[in-house]
């Protein structure tokens, strides 16, 4: 690090000197650290005449002043071919076409470059390019990571939200607030819910947070770690602060206490990651919201509603409904009391007063229960199997597996005349229905004759379920019937029914799982004249419930998005917290040493904004995030605005003014141009938080437009080019390279948005994590052709080609990408199927563009390098292509440094 002494405010410099003596106990304080100092707009330094002819924007004045101090001078402007290639990749992530290059070079307008910049900033490609940068920063991927790396089919709306926001040039204040608290701050703009994808972008430990037992310490540890990821993501991304360093102790270098850290955790103590439905259309949202409110009133039997239930108009509607209830078919069930209950594998049965039997004792892996019973009913049409919840079962059952599940492989129903018990004959089942089917484990599996498939009820554990089996032939024995019910449970792992109960009915077919609850069926069975007011109320309430339910169902389908929220779709034991969970200050970060309770708040070292949130209802989860979002986006926040402009600068120059974009603390870099950073931050904030204005200002500056050519003298005094005496040369990042290859090959499909393209074959894995095979992908399929921002990113097994090009591991926040060079990267660029196939496409394309080999080579170089090759180059290349074919040559061009690097 080579900080320029004169450029750094005195106190900060003093701190840096102290730091170099490496005494960790000396922390930065709010008064002595540059990034915590209040923002002010510095005056641009005055320029000499030479400088002012060079300078194009106020940015250049700051740059020129520091160059002058080191007796350096800036480089001349790059030529137009270099400029157009640079600014295209920079602003839209794609190369210019040969036609665009030619037109720009020929353009006589002195403002041709500025006009080009405006076109690029207005292009939808711009949002795609800059969304990708943001996705690095927030470690976005579309699977959970960890050992259960489940695919998140609903993550992509966040990516589309980002692209759209950058394209719209959404004011940065809004951009922050939406991603942290869209649901709380803009409740009438439900289309913004995907913004909350930021909070859920990172890895999520499904085993620990969903599958292991809820009462374990591992579950609680996982919650803290999960919130740590959210806090680190938000604070690193928006404020460039390293609060996560204060998890086990106060921050060693920055004025961030452990309390501050846990206060931030408590901001997110009410959220969990999961799927949330949202309305892309605000009007439909309002209708739905009203209906849901009615539904809640019905469910909670709110007094205001209950008082209206006997109103004549409503009762008239109920009468009408009852008339139309043609098939209200109230099935009457007779519960059978088993005379014997047998287990093939040694389960013990205890009879219950309700005629169910409870399985206790040793839990075999597999079992077959046989229940025998008698009945005198004639004309039996169906049998009902209830699997009842019970406090003695794991998770209250209804199954005996540790997770409360069961698997009924097959059911056999046998009957005989009571007097001839040896004549038991299996009965054909014509139809089966269940009140709930586990995905992939439906009730049909219990009657398919295949013991390898079964009915299950996971994740709806903890409550009773039932299945109804309609018999093909009615059963009627004059002397009464002997029944035998054989419940085969052959899946293994103790997936056994905990408390079964059998009933039969003589009601006419069809006998299915009822849509009308028993109580309503009973009320309907009473003649109208004999119904009490309570019956009438029950019926009216049921009628309203059904009506609201139907209206809701008829509304256009909602979309789903994977976010962190207080109200996500429960998934097994991963359920929303009813109120925010208590967050303790953990001594040394140890879960077994909880200290005081934390309260939602921001960083106390930021003195310009209150760090303690005044929340009237702290139990309201959303209000915590709303207050935090306001704190983060506050105009007087010293970190937020500096952080944002530094990130932008980083992407335009390959290095930020502060070269640690996620760390503005003592362990981070010092700004090379502190006054410029502040000037830009204020300009950005006061300019409505418009990112496009800042982009325009930067890319039209003289410093940006410089040539990247080396200067021996300058490199001797500033080898790292921190003072920007030239533009930096950069290697194309993985996505730009891939997109440029597709465009050169004429294969790029600019279709935007929607679900991501899986550029791999996916098949079920051994457990949760699917098998992902990149070798089995067809590079000519439609999913191969869109921009890389639409690639599906699988967290624990990323695309090896992109990996080799430093596409970051989506398990970690990546503010700055590496630019590595190694043998495996060379092999990927030479031999990966993508490059080989696109080389063929590129060669086929230029073969149609030009006739002679020379012309074809010129066309190839224009596509790859945005320039015409010289004579000797043409000769070398055509010698090779004549011998080995154009495709081989194209492959080499795509491997060349000139293609990979931007001047």
């Amino acid at each position, binding site marked *: 690090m080579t900080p320029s002494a004169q450029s750094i405010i005195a106190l900060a410099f003093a701190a840096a000197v102290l730091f170099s003596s490496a005494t960790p106990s000396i922390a930065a304080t709010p008064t002595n650290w540059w990034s915590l100092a209040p923002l002010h707009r510095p005056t641009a330094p005055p320029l000499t005449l030479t400088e002012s002819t060079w300078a194009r924007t106020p940015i250049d004045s700051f740059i020129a002043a520091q160059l002058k101090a080191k007796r350096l001078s800036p480089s001349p402007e790059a030529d137009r071919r270099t400029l157009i290639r640079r600014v295209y990749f920079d602003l839209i992530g794609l190369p210019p076409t040969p036609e665009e290059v030619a037109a720009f070079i020929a353009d006589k307008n002195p403002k041709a470059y500025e006009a080009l910049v405006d076109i690029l900033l207005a292009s939808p490609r711009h949002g795609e390019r800059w969304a990708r940068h943001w996705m690095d920063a927030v470690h976005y991927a579309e699977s959970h990571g960890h*050992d259960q790396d489940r695919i998140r089919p609903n993550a992509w709306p966040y990516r589309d939200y980002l692209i759209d926001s950058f394209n719209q040039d959404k004011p940065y204040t809004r951009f922050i607030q939406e991603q942290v608290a869209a649901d709380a701050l803009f409740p009438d703009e439900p289309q913004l819910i995907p913004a909350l994808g930021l909070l859920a972008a990172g890895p999520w430990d499904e085993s620990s947070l969903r599958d292991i037992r809820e009462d374990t310490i591992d579950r609680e540890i996982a919650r803290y770690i999960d919130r740590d990821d959210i806090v680190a993501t938000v604070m690193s991304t928006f404020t460039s602060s390293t609060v996560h360093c204060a998890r086990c102790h106060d921050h060693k270098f920055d004025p961030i206490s452990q309390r501050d850290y846990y206060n931030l955790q408590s901001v997110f103590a009410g959220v969990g990651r999961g799927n949330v439905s949202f309305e892309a259309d605000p009007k439909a949202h309002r209708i739905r919201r009203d209906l849901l409110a009615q539904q809640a009133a019905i469910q909670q039997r709110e007094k205001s509603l209950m008082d209206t239930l006997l109103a004549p108009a409503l009762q008239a509607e109920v009468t009408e409904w009852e008339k139309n209830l043609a098939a209200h078919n109230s099935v009457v069930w007779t519960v059978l009391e088993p005379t014997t209950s047998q287990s093939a594998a040694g389960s013990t049965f205890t009879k219950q007063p309700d005629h169910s039997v409870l399985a206790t004792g040793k839990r075999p892996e597999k079992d077959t229960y046989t229940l025998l019973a008698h009945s005198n009913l004639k004309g039996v049409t169906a049998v009902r199997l209830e699997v009842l919840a019970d406090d003695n079962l794991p998770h209250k059952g209804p199954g005996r597996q540790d997770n409360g599940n069961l698997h009924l492989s097959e059911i056999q129903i046998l009957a005989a005349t009571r007097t001839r018990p040896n004549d038991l004959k299996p009965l054909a089942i014509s139809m089966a229905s269940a009140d709930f089917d586990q995905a992939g484990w439906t009730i049909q599996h219990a009657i398919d004759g295949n013991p390898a498939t079964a009915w299950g009820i996971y994740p709806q554990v903890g409550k009773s379920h039932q299945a109804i089996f309609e018999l093909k032939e009615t059963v009627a024995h004059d002397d009464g019937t002997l029944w035998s019910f054989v419940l085969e449970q052959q899946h293994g792992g103790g997936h056994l029914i905990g408390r079964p109960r059998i009933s039969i009915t003589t009601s006419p077919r069809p006998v299915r799982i009822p849509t009308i609850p028993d109580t309503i069926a009973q009320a309907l069975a009473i003649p109208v004249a004999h119904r009490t007011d309570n019956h009438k109320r029950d019926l009216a309430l049921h009628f309203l419930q059904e009506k609201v339910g139907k209206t809701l169902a008829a509304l256009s389908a909602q979309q789903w998005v994977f976010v962190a929220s207080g109200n996500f779709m429960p998934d097994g034991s991963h359920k929303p917290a009813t109120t925010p969970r208590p967050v303790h200050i953990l001594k040394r970060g140890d879960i077994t040493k909880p200290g005081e309770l934390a309260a939602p708040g921001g960083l106390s070292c930021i003195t310009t904004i209150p760090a303690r949130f005044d929340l009237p209802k702290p139990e309201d989860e959303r209000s915590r995030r709303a207050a935090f979002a306001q704190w983060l986006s506050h105009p007087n926040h010293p970190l937020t605005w500096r952080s944002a402009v530094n990130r932008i600068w980083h992407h335009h120059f390959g290095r930020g003014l502060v070269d640690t974009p996620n760390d503005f603390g003592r362990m981070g870099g010092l700004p090379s141009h502190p006054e410029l950073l502040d000037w830009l931050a204020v300009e950005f904030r006061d300019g409505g938080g418009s990112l496009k204005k800042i982009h325009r200002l930067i890319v039209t500056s003289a410093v940006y437009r410089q040539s990247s050519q080396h200067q021996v003298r300058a490199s001797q005094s500033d080898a790292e080019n921190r003072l920007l005496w030239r533009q930096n040369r950069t290697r194309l990042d993985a996505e730009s390279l891939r997109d440029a290859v597709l465009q050169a090959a004429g294969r790029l499909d600019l279709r935007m948005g929607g679900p991501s393209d899986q550029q791999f074959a996916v098949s079920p894995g051994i457990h949760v994590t699917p098998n992902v095979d990149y*070798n089995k992908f067809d590079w000519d399929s439609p999913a191969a052709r869109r921009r890389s921002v639409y690639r599906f990113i699988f967290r624990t097994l990323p695309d090896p080609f992109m990996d080799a090009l430093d596409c970051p591991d989506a398990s970690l926040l990546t503010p700055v990408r590496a630019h590595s060079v190694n*043998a495996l990267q060379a092999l990927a660029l030479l031999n990966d199927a993508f490059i080989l196939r696109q080389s063929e496409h590129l060669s086929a394309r230029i073969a149609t563009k030009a006739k002679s080999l020379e012309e074809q080579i010129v066309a190839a170089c224009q596509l790859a390098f945005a320039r015409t090759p010289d004579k000797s180059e043409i000769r070398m290349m055509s010698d090779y292509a004549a011998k*080995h074919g154009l495709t081989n040559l194209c492959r080499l061009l795509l491997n060349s440094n000139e293609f990979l690097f931007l001047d």
Partner: protein
Amino acid sequence: MNPALQNELLGRRDFLGRVGNGFGGLALAHLLGAAENRDAQPRALWKGGLHHPAKARRVIQLFMNGGASQMDLFDYKPELFRRHGQKFDPGTSERVEAATSAPGTVMKPPFEFKQHGQCGRWVSNLFPHIAGRVDDMAFLMALASKTNVHGPASYMMNTGFLAPGHPCLGSWISYGLGRLSDNLPTFVVLPDPRGLPYNQKGNFTAGFLPITHQGTAIHAHLPAPIANLAPAGAPKFISRESEREGLALLAQLNRAHAAAHPGQDQLESRIESYELAARLQLHAPEALDIANETLSTRNLYGLDDKITEDFGRRCLLARRLAERGVRFIQIWSGAGGPSKNWDNHSDIHTELPAMARATDKPIAGLLADLQARGLLEDTLVIWSTEFGRMPFTQGATGRDHNGGTSVAWLAGAGIKGGATFGESDPWSWKAADGKMYCYDLHATILHLLGVDHEQLTVRHNGIDRRLTDVHGEVVHPILA
């Protein structure tokens, strides 16, 4: 690899001959990612160590994926036999809980235990071959984890952290010590052909270190064991000659470009990376070809038996890679998921013997072969897992995860054979004496490689990160 392709690759010798003058140490060091880490080059005066003399030059780690059941293999506990079938009551205030099930009753190991070797190490009859080598091994008998869940536990044992995103042991070693050979990757992973482990490549990620230090997976059972070593799908337009002349032309174009764009190391490095790639293409197929291994060597590793063949082949490959300069080799036994690994929730009687049998002879064979070739002198062999298992039942005869204690052993370079460190409680439920975590194991491994774990740091997002976080003590009692 098919012979035609091999010939094609061998044709690259000419190419290498012509451009081979560029293999200066400095140029190569640059490609190793050493540019970011100039001070981290091993120094001759430390025998290849970074901070002090190294005992070990290379490491072979055998990772038992799923949580190998310590009390059924090495951690003999008479108390379990005495209390078999009783309610588990450790008599402490600590709550008895299990990650995925309700705790059952105490279960004795359904296997026979005997003492072996001079050191008298108890080993169950599941490991008859390993039992014969206990005097070469040092046992860590109280290695705990901070979690009872596979994902975080696997991250912890591999990277030192519960959350993903941190570099793993092999990556740190690659980063800290660089490579021993220019012909092969520094850090190689040999996954179980049945599937990648929990966390998949997350367990061999370079995290925030340069991607160069990521583990290179070699899928020994696939036709293309190393990705992109040869053109994918062997397209017709590529021939031996087109490759040779093409790479020469590419070098020429890149040289001309670099000459016109002075002052940028990366341009030169890229030219060199293609030369290094050619070396890898030349040498990797030979390293992976076991055709010339003698019958007795093959049998030593169990290649003559279907059950031990796969793991045996990977152990044999590990020896070949070690001989040829790969610094860190990780062999996985077991895939992620609920079965075909060491995660024996359902039935210890049947599930564990299958895993043990598949690995026992190959592991003993590897140790014997390394010793016979003198490689055990400076090769460290580690056997470990992500956590242990419970002394009580899950279901009828399974065992649930146990972060409380587990067993690992080390053998070879710098290790005091027959030593033991730590002890679990009478049930093998929790570590009792000499409790240690992965930090201490990692610190010890680095120590043997001549690296001070506290000094091998990289600044990332505001923290000087270490493999051992803020913990770690070298376990001196097991060192020779």
